[in-house]
């Protein structure tokens, strides 16, 4: 009931700025990302035995398990496994079985099974005694196997022991376990139709490892036999083992010697190691060897070895004799220049190998070297292909293939019969910085106008006339386009093209891996270009400064790179300096100022910059002035052993449309508008308190301070300050009898005095000084009005919509990690002057105030992300456009999401509801009516004249 009332009130007042269903994908775009797929755990799988449709499953380096529709690359479901288990630096392992609606994933010590079709949990388990080193699904034809679920073999490895566990396919309960405490490195598990193998690496006496294979009874886990392979000469590290097969009639272990001269193959279960000579005719060193073998129980015992050199690659196909376990070479796929990737796929027992090179995609059967299908690649990617998985379908004699190729840059693309169907830029999940850029073309006119502004009156006039004459050359084209434009604008369902109003600015995004992407916000965030700027995996970008046509990226090590924003070409670079910067400020004149970790400025700055407020690594806030760059002017240390965790200031672009708030009785409350405000959050982890301090940046004076008790410092505490108000949120627990438990959002407004029409100590002053006040009380303290709301979920990040003039109502943009969305709370709802425990008086109602309710439920229409599942967002940016009503929003950090927010509705745009066709039809109808009625009226008047006479 309460909720309904709250929802109803909210619905009444909120200037409903929700988006219309037909605007989805037009005003907003979303890249649902999972991270770079792990090669060993990526596969096509038919989740249902009834249907032939398959999905693409993978687990990424971020331990996110995802199911992707191979048709369009859309993410169907995903699960972050890292949340549940220990954080691991290794991505995870994923296994699935064709025709079974279950996939089993493991990350860290957490193992779980999910329904393959819709991502619902089947079972989960957490091991206390180690991390999961390998998992395999048991494909046994057991008499007892009545249910469809496949049991899972999990290898749990710890410092001292390796444990093989068989987990029930329906419940996840351990059926049996076999513990090996010999201290060997737990490596992998494998299975054949009749046995389970535990493969561990035994440290050899001098160097290297011996492969130890322990065969276990699949029913009770008892050890049946054990043998050791002499491999210490070749295997130096666990990574030296190229391949361990599983779930096939004859599982293999493959390794090579260090010089890549010979290949050693062991059919698991036999003691003999076969040596295959590598015939390297390319004349180049082999860089990488990969082994590709089918993963199906009934498939032919064939496998392919892929050799990659610096500039080319070839592959050899081998057959295994099931009786003698002998390995024989069948045929060779020729050496080709350029990159190459191979994938294996099955149709029943037949095995097919798909080879994708720069120029073509080919399919061969494992049985013979005849090429079954060949397609020319449309566009060769410049990025190296790391890995591919494929799916082959055959119709009569012809075959078709679709393969998903993972490129070195993190692009994951599906190639169907030589054509690239879709590309997912999984690298974007590691976005660390982003900004909107100005393109040069838009600047040409501005430049011309600037020239005119600097010339004499006559000179400027001549310049302008010349410019207009020059512009005339575009006239014929324009006239030619005109009819088409009119027709298309009337007929199509498109909203007015607003690109000229700055709503379709490109965004450049820098990722941790050293890449830079340009996203076209006008085209659903499609990647215009991407470029590797820095060869690193930890690019700590602190700031991106843009100028028309170019952007400069500054990293924490003091290096920078300038790129052309329309092509991505690197124009210039500066080398890293020997510093570690915690943040980089961009100044008005496109220069930057680095801040050291201890809070001091890295380079000297002068009075033209003014003053500086920094935070230091040891939890203090420092104020600096241009006169003295060596020591801070003031220092703020929070009281009672609190530690500063966050500091924020008003946005750079923060226009104020009105300096006061007009009340219902026409009196005015003057806003406290100090441009130098900083909001500091400090927490004490011992007694669970959080302090929020409002500082004056110039003098360091504490203008307002408040302490919240029962705060969970481990949960996100978000805060934001703009105009004359600030907001923060936290998780608050019970501290006394009357307190509630839950997430809270506090909003505070600053006024010059508590009385309307009164400016308090400022009186009629036109300006004020932070340092030199008339009565020593300078700057004057604000009158603060606050109200707290209980909200249903945590807020991890806050931002405020920005518009050109600040006339449009602002929205508080809150990132909700629990429901994977971004919500824009309208400011009128968050008015701290809402009357408490009584209905508003008529003058308050006129102001738009309504009764305060302690619980604030987020209305569905406030969700900027609507039905989208936008997870992992770390930062939300907002930027004004040339349209006052519209503010651009871009969110990154996990997924990529961009939209246009219209907090007071799109009042200066003709929306989709404006039908041009209807307007034209109305005019036509009226003209017809006039044409029809006019002669009638004329006739009548003439008749009447005759009658009157």
């Amino acid at each position: 009931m309460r909720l309904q009332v709250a929802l109803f009130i909210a619905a009444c007042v909120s200037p409903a700025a929700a988006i219309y269903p037909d605007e989805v994908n037009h005003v907003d775009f979303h890249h649902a990302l999972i991270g770079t797929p792990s090669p060993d755990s990526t596969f096509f799988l038919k989740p249902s035995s009834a249907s032939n449709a398959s999905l693409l499953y993978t687990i990424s380096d971020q331990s996110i398990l995802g199911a992707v529709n191979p048709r369009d690359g859309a993410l169907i479901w995903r699960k972050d496994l890292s949340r549940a288990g220990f954080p691991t630096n290794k991505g995870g392992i994923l296994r699935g079985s064709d025709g079974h609606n279950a996939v089993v994933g493991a990350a860290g010590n957490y193992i779980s099974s999910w329904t393959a079709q819709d991502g619902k949990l089947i079972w989960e388990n957490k091991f206390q005694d180690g991390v999961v080193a390998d998992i395999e699904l048991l494909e046994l034809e057991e008499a007892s196997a009545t249910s469809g679920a496949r049991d899972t073999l999990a290898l749990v490895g710890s410092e001292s022991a390796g444990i093989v566990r068989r987990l029930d396919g329906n419940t996840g309960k351990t059926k049996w376990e076999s513990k090996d405490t010999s201290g060997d490195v737990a490596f992998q598990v494998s299975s054949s139709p009749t046995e389970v193998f535990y493969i561990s690496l035994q440290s050899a006496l001098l160097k290297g490892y011996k492969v130890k294979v322990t065969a276990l009874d699949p029913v009770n886990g008892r050890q049946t036999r054990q043998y050791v392979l002499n491999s210490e000469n070749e295997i130096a590290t666990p990574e030296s083992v190229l391949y361990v097969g599983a779930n096939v009639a004859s599982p293999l272990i493959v390794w090579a010697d260090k010089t890549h001269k010979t290949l050693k193959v062991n059919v698991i279960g036999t003691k003999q190691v076969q040596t295959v000579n590598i015939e390297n005719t390319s004349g180049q060193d082999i860089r990488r060897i990969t082994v590709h073998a089918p993963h199906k129980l009934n498939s032919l015992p064939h496998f392919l070895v892929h050799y990659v050199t610096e500039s080319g690659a070839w592959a050899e196909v081998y057959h295994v004799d099931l009786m003698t376990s002998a390995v024989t070479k069948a045929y060779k796929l020729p050496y080709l220049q350029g990159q190459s990737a191979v994938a294996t796929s099955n149709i029943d027992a037949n095995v097919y190998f798909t080879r994708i090179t720069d120029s073509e995609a080919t399919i061969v059967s494992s049985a013979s070297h005849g090429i079954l299908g060949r397609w020319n690649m449309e566009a060769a990617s410049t990025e190296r292909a790391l890995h591919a998985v494929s799916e082959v379908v055959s119709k009569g004699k012809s075959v078709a293939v679709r393969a998903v190729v993972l490129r070195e840059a993190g692009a994951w693309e599906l190639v169907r019969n030589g054509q690239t169907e879709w590309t997912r830029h999984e690298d974007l999940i590691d976005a660390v910085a982003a900004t909107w850029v100005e393109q040069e073309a838009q600047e040409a006119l501005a430049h011309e106008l600037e020239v005119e502004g600097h010339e004499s009156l006559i000179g400027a006039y001549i310049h302008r006339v010349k410019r207009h004459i020059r512009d005339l050359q575009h006239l014929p084209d324009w006239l030619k386009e005109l009819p088409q434009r009119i027709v298309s604008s009337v007929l199509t369902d498109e909203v007015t093209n607003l690109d000229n109003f700055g709503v379709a600015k490109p965004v450049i995004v820098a990722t941790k891996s050293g890449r830079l992407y340009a996203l076209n916000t006008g085209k659903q965030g499609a990647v215009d270009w991407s470029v590797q700027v820095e060869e690193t995996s930890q690019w700590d970008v602190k700031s991106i400064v843009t100028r028309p046509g170019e952007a400069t990226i500054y990293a924490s090590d003091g290096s920078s790179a300038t790129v052309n924003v329309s092509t991505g070409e690197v124009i210039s670079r500066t080398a890293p300096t020997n510093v570690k910067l915690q943040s980089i400020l961009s100044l008005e004149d496109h220069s930057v100022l680095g801040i050291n970790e201890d809070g001091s400025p890295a380079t000297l700055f002068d009075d033209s910059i003014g003053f500086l407020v920094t935070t230091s690594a040891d939890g203090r806030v420092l104020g600096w002035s241009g006169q003295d760059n060596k020591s801070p002017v003031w220092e703020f240390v929070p009281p009672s052993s609190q530690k500063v965790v966050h500091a924020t200031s008003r946005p750079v672009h923060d226009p104020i449309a009105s300096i006061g708030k007009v009340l219902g009785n026409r009196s005015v409350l003057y806003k406290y508008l100090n441009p130098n405000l900083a909001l500091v959050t400090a927490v004490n982890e011992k007694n669970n308190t959080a302090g929020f301090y409002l500082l004056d940046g110039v003098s360091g004076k504490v203008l307002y301070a408040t302490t919240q008790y029962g705060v969970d410092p481990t949960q996100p505490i978000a805060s934001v300050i703009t105009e004359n108000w600030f907001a923060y949120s936290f998780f608050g627990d019970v501290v006394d009898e009357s307190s509630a438990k839950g997430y809270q959002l506090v909003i505070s407004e600053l006024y010059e005095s508590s009385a309307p029409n009164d400016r308090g100590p400022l009186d009629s002053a036109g300006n004020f000084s932070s340092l030199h006040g008339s009565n020593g009380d300078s700057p004057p303290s604000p009158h603060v009005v606050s109200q707290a709301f209980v909200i249903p979920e945590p807020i991890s990040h806050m931002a405020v919509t920005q518009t050109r003039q600040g006339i449009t109502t602002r929205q508080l943009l809150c990132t909700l990690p629990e429901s994977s969305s971004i919500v824009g709370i309208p400011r009128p709802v968050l008015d701290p002057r809402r009357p408490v425990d009584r209905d508003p008086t008529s003058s308050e109602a006129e102001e738009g105030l309504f009764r305060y309710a302690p619980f604030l439920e987020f209305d569905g229409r406030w969700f900027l992300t609507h039905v989208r599942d936008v997870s992992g967002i770390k930062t939300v940016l907002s930027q004004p456009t040339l349209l006052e009503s519209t503010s651009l929003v871009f969110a990154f950090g996990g997924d990529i999401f961009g939209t246009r927010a219209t907090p007071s509705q799109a009042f200066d745009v003709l929306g989709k509801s404006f039908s041009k066709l209807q307007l034209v039809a109305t005019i036509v109808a009226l003209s017809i009516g006039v044409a029809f009625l006019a002669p009638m009226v004329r006739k009548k008047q003439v008749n009447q004249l005759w009658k009157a006479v």
Partner: protein
Amino acid sequence: MSLVAVLLLCHLAAASLTITIPATNLLPNPHGLPASTHATLTTLPSGNDHLLTASLTHASTLVFHDIPAQQESYLLDIRSSEYIFAPYRVDVAADGSVLGIWETFRGNPWDNRGAEKYVVDAAAKKQSDVVVEAKLVGRRGFFEERAKFSPLSLVKNPMILLAIVALGFTLGMPKLMESMDPEMRAEFEEHSRSSPLTGGASNALAGGGFDLAGWMAGTSPNPMANADAAPAGVTGRDTGAATRRR
């Protein structure tokens, strides 16, 4: 050795809390809930695990397997993108077993408990697995409905209605007049002539049309005045004729 591990697992599984999602009018098929649906148990950190999460299972339940053995009062939230569930209060005993589950009201004192969902039965031997039903309270509407164009809505517009009626009169009146018998028509005409308003208006029309815009602007004389002036004009013409006669 293995027995110990199995026992350990059993012990962890001892205190489990299962939340079932019933089918309701708002949500006829709980199996259709998105995979992101999950439940959280939240409280202030006093141990290491103070934020527990449970994912939606294929049976449309949310199961917390290992509630830490610590006396605590948790806030249970069930989160789904589109559906809103009522929050619960879950009290856990020092051994990790659930003491009681109540509905709770956000923004109210924590001790203000709502409907009781489960309370441990002190007399009975400890029950380890607790099952409660989630309570669905609402569904979010994310989108604004766009007003659709329909001819019916056009007809509902009073301006359009007036115009249609006026058009009907203009076209229908002469027809009606013609179909009247001559006596009636004569009477009607007599009647309308004697009526000052219609008479004046027709006069004004006869005099070259009534200038509505001019009248509203005050530059043209009042139609009433016009009606009065017309007979005067007639007299004027009469007098003029008389003078000429003289």
